[in-house]
C-alpha cells in the first residue's frame, strides 16, 4: 500500500513538473511579455509606417519630426532618410549617451521619430533601448519607424528618398 501511495505521489509530481514546463514553454514562446528593451516592447500606437512617414515628410505645413537613426553608423552612412541624424547605436551605452546628448536640450513635447533598420524588427537591438531612453528623459511625442525587414527592403527599395554620407 505504501508503494502504491509513493507511486501515485511520483506520478503527480511528474505531472506537475510537466505542467510547469509546458507553461514555461508557452510563456516564452507565445504569451511572454517582451523584454523592456526589445523592439516588440514598443507599443503599436507609437509605431509609424514607412508610407506614413514618407507622406508626412512630403506634406507642407505640418510639423516635421526630428528623425534620428539609432542603429549602425556604417549603414547610416550608406543610406538614411534625408535630413535624419545619426544618434546611436541604441544597443550600446555610448550610443545611448550620444542620443541623450542630442535630445537633452530639446523641449519634451517635440516630435521625434527614431529608426534603425539593421535587421528584422523583432531582432533589432537598437530601437527598443533608444525608445525607452527617450521616454525616461520625459519625451512625450516619440514615434518609431516600423521597418519589418530592414531599411533597404522597407524604405530604400520602395522608392522612398534616401541620402548618403556620415
Amino acid at each position: 500500500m505504501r508503494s502504491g501511495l509513493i507511486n501515485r505521489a511520483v506520478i503527480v509530481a511528474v505531472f506537475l513538473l510537466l505542467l510547469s514546463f509546458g507553461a514555461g514553454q508557452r510563456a516564452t514562446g507565445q504569451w511572454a511579455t517582451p523584454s523592456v528593451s526589445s523592439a516588440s516592447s514598443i507599443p503599436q500606437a507609437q509605431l509609424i509606417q514607412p508610407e506614413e512617414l514618407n507622406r508626412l515628410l512630403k506634406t507642407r505645413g505640418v510639423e516635421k519630426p526630428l528623425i534620428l537613426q539609432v542603429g549602425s553608423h556604417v549603414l547610416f552612412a550608406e543610406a538614411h532618410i534625408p535630413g535624419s541624424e545619426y544618434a546611436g547605436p541604441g544597443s550600446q551605452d555610448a550610443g545611448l549617451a550620444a542620443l541623450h546628448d542630442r535630445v537633452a536640450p530639446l523641449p519634451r513635447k517635440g516630435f521625434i521619430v527614431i529608426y534603425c533598420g539593421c535587421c528584422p524588427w523583432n531582432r533589432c537591438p537598437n530601437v527598443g533601448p533608444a525608445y525607452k531612453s527617450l521616454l525616461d528623459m520625459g519625451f512625450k511625442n516619440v514615434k518609431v519607424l516600423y521597418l519589418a525587414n530592414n531599411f533597404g527592403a522597407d524604405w530604400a527599395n520602395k522608392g522612398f528618398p534616401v541620402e548618403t554620407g556620415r
Partner: protein
Amino acid sequence: MLLAGLVGACLAGSGSHAGFAAAQTLLNRKAPEFKRRDLNGQTLDLARYRGKVVLLNFWATWCAPCQLEMPVFAAWQRQYGPRGLQVVGISMDDDPALARRSVARLQLNYEIAMGDERLGALYGGVMGLPTTFLIDRNGVVRAQFQGETDLSSIEKQVVALANGP
C-alpha cells in the same frame, strides 16, 4: 561589375536613389572586386579567390541572426574548403575591436575584413544584415541572401557551385 562599380561610385555623397535597385542587378554579373586589410593586417583581395566558390557574408556584432549563421559558415569552411569553398566575412561594425572579439568568441576560421559604406554601396547597397552573396569560380554572383535565411538553402547552392565547373 562595371555597372555596379559605377553605381557605387555615384552613390558616394550623391543622395541618389537609383543605386539601391542595383542589389538585384548583381545576380549573374561579375562580383565587384575589392581589397581590404583583414583583421590580421594582411591584404584581403577578392580577386585572389578566383577559381574558388566564395561565400561573401556581410555581418555585424549586434546582428543576432549573423551570430547564429557564422559558426555554421565556419563549419562549411572546414567541410567544403577542400572542395574549393572560401568564406569571406565583412564586418559592418564601426569598431574593429568588437569584430575581433566576436571572431575569437565564435572561433571563426575564415577571412574577415572590416567593411564600410563604400563597400556596401559597391555591392548594390547592403542596408540590412545579414547579407550574403555566393560567387562562383569565375567570379560571377550566382545568389544573394538577405536577412534570416534557411541555411540549408544556402548550403545546397554552395554544394552545387562547388560541384560545378
